[in-house]
């Protein structure tokens, strides 16, 4: 619906640009650019702004954070100082970047961490994969393989009963070693010695 829009090389814009379609920038922009479609930054363009679009293709210079719903591609001549965040990020050899990159990687590929075999190292590492910053890969990483993990890794969300059981029975133990043990009412009624024996045996 939106016609081809293009900010020519000699044009300077200071302010906010919003597009409900595609946009090409060859000039100088200071402020912010938000496009619903694709955003192309030409070779000689100089952008001092945050960029947000469905897909971003950069060949020029950008000082600002870049966020895309689908993909970010930095072409060989690109120079970017800022954070990049998108499910797919391509950085061609020759592109220069300085900042934090959050590239999800393909969702069809193997999730990076399946149930780790050893426990002590996994404990500090595994919870790190859950925070909001890994938004794009949450479903790739926190897939069913982790929820199914038995005594090898903590499940992302433990059922309430298991959490209560853990509080009661494990104080010093690292969370990784304490498996999400479902609380069986029948077992609870056993004598104390049995419980202690079981804990020691683990």
């Amino acid at each position: 619906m939106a016609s081809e829009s293009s900010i020519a090389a000699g044009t300077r814009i200071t302010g906010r640009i919003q597009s409900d379609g595609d946009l090409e920038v060859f000039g100088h922009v200071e402020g912010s650019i938000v496009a619903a479609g694709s955003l192309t930054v030409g070779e000689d363009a100089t952008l001092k702004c945050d960029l947000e679009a469905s897909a971003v293709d950069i060949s020029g210079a950008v000082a600002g954070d870049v966020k895309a719903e689908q993909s970010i591609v930095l072409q060989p001549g690109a120079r970017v100082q800022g954070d990049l965040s998108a499910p797919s990020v391509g950085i061609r050899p020759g592109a220069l970047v300085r900042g934090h990159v959050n590239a999800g990687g393909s969702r069809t590929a193997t999730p990076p961490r399946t149930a780790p075999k050893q426990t002590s190292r996994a404990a500090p590492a595994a919870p790190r994969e859950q925070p909001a910053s890994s938004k794009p890969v949450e479903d790739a990483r926190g897939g069913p393989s982790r929820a199914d993990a038995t005594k090898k890794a903590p499940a992302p969300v433990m059922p309430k009963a298991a959490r209560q059981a853990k509080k009661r029975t494990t104080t010093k133990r690292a969370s990784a070693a304490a498996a999400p043990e479902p609380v069986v009412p029948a077992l609870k009624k056993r004598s104390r010695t049995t419980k202690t024996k079981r804990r020691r045996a683990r």
Partner: protein
Amino acid sequence: MVKDSTGGQRALGEPAVLGQGLRVVGRVRGEGDLRVEAQVDGDITISGQLLVAAPARVTGSVAAESVVVSGLLEGDVNASGSVAIEAAGRVRGDIRASELSLEEGGGLEGSIEADFELPKELA
């Protein structure tokens, strides 16, 4: 062909290999090139090219002249030459290199430090 720190290219020599079934706990050091397909828990420091190839899982920092990742790497990457993350690669850690490339589909979560200057309009 890989790029070294001087920007020159050379053919990959015969690399040492840490094969698939291996599990290494501890530091790995060496001269020359190294191809890792194993699970390594520890830092890797070599003087040549490092290949972290699927199904490798490396947990630790790596330092080499150049690095190519198509497996899993959780740790910082320090290269005097180039770092390439292929589509199957997943890296979580900070990267220092003279050149970095990331194939679309590849995963990266970390900071990149490249030494360059922005045009003066963006200062």
